[in-house]
């Protein structure tokens, strides 16, 4: 896969680049300034752009702003945002679109999970950090209150972007059981059921976003 990495900390940037290269991906551009990011993505048309939220020039949310601008030009460009903490105001419009991920930076240390998320997003799926999903899934909300604890666990993992198989592995369940839970979740949340994995996640995310 061809990857563009935008990260202002040289140390971290080099680490991510080496990690990706070790996994057999090609880093076509690695830059430390959001100002030239849009141009680089347009030129390289990478399979995925990994972007730090907080970057020069203003050190606030330049990465997120650049991501939004990239999506305006290339609506299907896979993007994985990285952040030191959860700040989603500029990326909420992207959360429920496909081919989008948002992870905390330290998830990089779980190398396999990270590379898995990269591949998933590049393939048009999603990868949301559990912390973000946790903020989205509020137990107090009326719809979510009807879910059982187990159903809520399943929903969280699905919202993070995992497939039924991955959810089953994660929770040590049979895949059929996960499917049963999913049907129950969709019924309780009054969502239209879909067999397509990506669309299913997006429906869940759209529901969660609507709660915000």
């Amino acid at each position, binding site marked *: 896969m061809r990857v563009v990495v935008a990260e202002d900390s040289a140390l*971290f940037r080099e*680490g991510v680049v080496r990690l990706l290269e070790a996994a057999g991906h090609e880093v076509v551009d690695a830059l430390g300034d959001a100002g030239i990011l849009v141009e680089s993505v347009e030129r390289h048309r990478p399979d995925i752009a990994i972007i730090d939220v907080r970057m020069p020039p203003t*050190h606030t949310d330049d990465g997120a702003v650049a991501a939004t601008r990239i999506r305006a030009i290339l609506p299907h460009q896979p993007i994985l945002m990285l952040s030191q*903490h959860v700040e989603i105001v500029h990326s909420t419009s992207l959360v429920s679109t496909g081919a989008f991920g948002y992870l905390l*930076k*330290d998830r*990089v240390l779980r190398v396999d999970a990270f590379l898995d998320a990269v591949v998933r997003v590049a393939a048009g799926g999603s990868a949301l950090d559990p912390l973000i999903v946790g903020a989205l899934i509020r137990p107090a909300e009326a719809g979510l209150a009807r879910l059982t604890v187990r159903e809520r666990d399943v929903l969280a993992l699905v919202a993070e972007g995992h497939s039924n198989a991955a959810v089953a592995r994660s929770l040590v369940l049979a895949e059929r059981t996960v499917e049963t839970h999913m049907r129950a979740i969709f019924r309780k949340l009054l969502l239209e059921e879909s067999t397509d994995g990506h669309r299913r996640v997006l429906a869940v995310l759209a529901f969660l976003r609507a709660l915000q």
Partner: protein
Amino acid sequence: MGHDVGMTGGARVAVLSTLATVGAGIAILVAIAGPARVPVGPEALANLASIFPLALGWILVVRAPSSPVGPILTVLAAALIVIPALDTWGYTAFSDSPWWGSSLVAVVSPALWAWQIAPFLALLVIFPSGLLPGIRWRVVASLIPVSAASITVALLVERWAASDALVLPALVMLLSVAIACLGSVIVRYRVGDENEKRQLGWLILASLCVVVLMAASWVGVFFNLVDSAAFGVFLLSLVVLVPTAVTIAVLRHDLFEIERLLGDVVAWIATTLAAAALVAALVLGLGALLGSYTTAGLAAAVFVAAVALLPLHHRIHRAVGGVIDRDRTMVRERMARFVERVREGSAEPEEVEAALADAVGDDALRVYLTDPAGAGTVNTRGEAEELPERGVRIPLTSAGLTIAVVVVGEGSSRRVRRARLALEASSLAVDVSRLNLGLRRALADVEESRRRVWTAAVHERTRIERDLHDGAQQQLVAVGMKLRAAQRQVDPANSASADIDKAVEMLERTVGDLRELAHGVRPPRLEDGLDAALRDLVAGSPIPVDVRVDAAVVTDVITTTAYFVVSEAMANVLKHARATRVGIHVRRERDELHVRVTDDGVGGVPATFALTALRDRVASIGGSAEATSSPGRGTTITAVLPCGS
């Protein structure tokens, strides 16, 4: 003088009186020094003192031609000397060379003394305007000559018919008329306007002195302390004091604070009488009780009276002041009431300017306080303001320092005196408002510095949060990545690989801890705005929370403060309220951000509960916070934060 067309009636009377006075004076001198050689006592010479009221009368005729007082004074002067002159004429009958008709005059003149009093009584009735106090007083006025005449008739009847049956009724009548005339003065004083009161004050003061002197003379004669010459002194005082007083009253009634003078005199007289009565009562009482009048009893009575004297005088003075010096007493009482209200806290000392203006009756009155911080003057609102060029300045001093200056409009010296009086009575309020000024300034300084400290703290928190995220946290992640890179060189079966896994896990936990720490320092979601940060805050809440933020962008400091207000309020709700629903509402109202957290919990939480930290935070940016609650009705915590503009 009848041909002098330009002369007024008053002046004509004065001229006639003068001619009579001069004629009588010459007659007396001739009788004494001439061939008749009438022997005279000092009283006769004292009669020459009527020159004095005559002169005063003329001053008034010239200076105040419209006033009837001048002519009356001249008549009074004439009466004072003409009747003794007639007496002297009568005396010549007993000399070697009696004057023509002196035997008849000798009979008549002793019956004329009441006519000396008549002009005084007339003066009392018409003073100071020349008009009677009312239509019914015409009777009293007409009874003055009638009663004088009746005395004359009664005395003549006594002389010729040897019957004194008429004397007592005539005396009673004269006395009654005299009392009625005095009554007219008091009636006039009660209903008269300010000027009239002040003019009458002079007359009453002089009359009181006469009465007191007369009483003193009687007492002196009665106890044989002085001889009858005391009456001469009394007469002289009558001739001097009363005309002087009425002259001042007509020309310069503003000369002294006559009400105060009069009030003081009356109060002291009353006190003296009361004290004397007390001594007498105690002496008699003790005497009756012990069966004998002892020196010890007298001493005890005097002691009690002496002890009672000052409080007695104080009360009498107040009572008398309320009647005679009503205006002054009212000014003082009004200011005393104001000071009392300041003490109670129902009035602000800064309202002293309005209170003074009201009491003095001068809307233009201004109070300037000496700046407690240094030189210059400030108004009661604490703004620097120079003393104006115009107006009369009245300083108020305390411990040798001028603490304030009151400026009143130029005008009557009366208003200035009233303002001075009011200012003295309210000096406490003035001093307090000046000290308040210093306190207010110090408080403003403290508030300003607290705001600076909190603002600095907010910025510092932002900086620390960024440092934690971009510095330490990022470094740790980078270290972890290096470890992962190193791990790739190691055989997964090697125990070193498992060690590296453990090390990376520890790093992850540390990064997580740092994230929590940074969040506590300053929630990074604030970058996304207050709405996002508050939604993030309540995301983990076990009970439903409605968040509504209707506020445009406000400064970082305000946003952060509002966030912490909600955060603390939420913590309180979750800890104490047992609520099933919470509402958070933030809205902008002009220059204020209103933050409200309501719950439907048990309520009844005292307004002071655990809000100290919250209050401090809010107060540090000049805002206010309060909690309202009643049992079973939930609690509402409201904070109002000034946003500036």
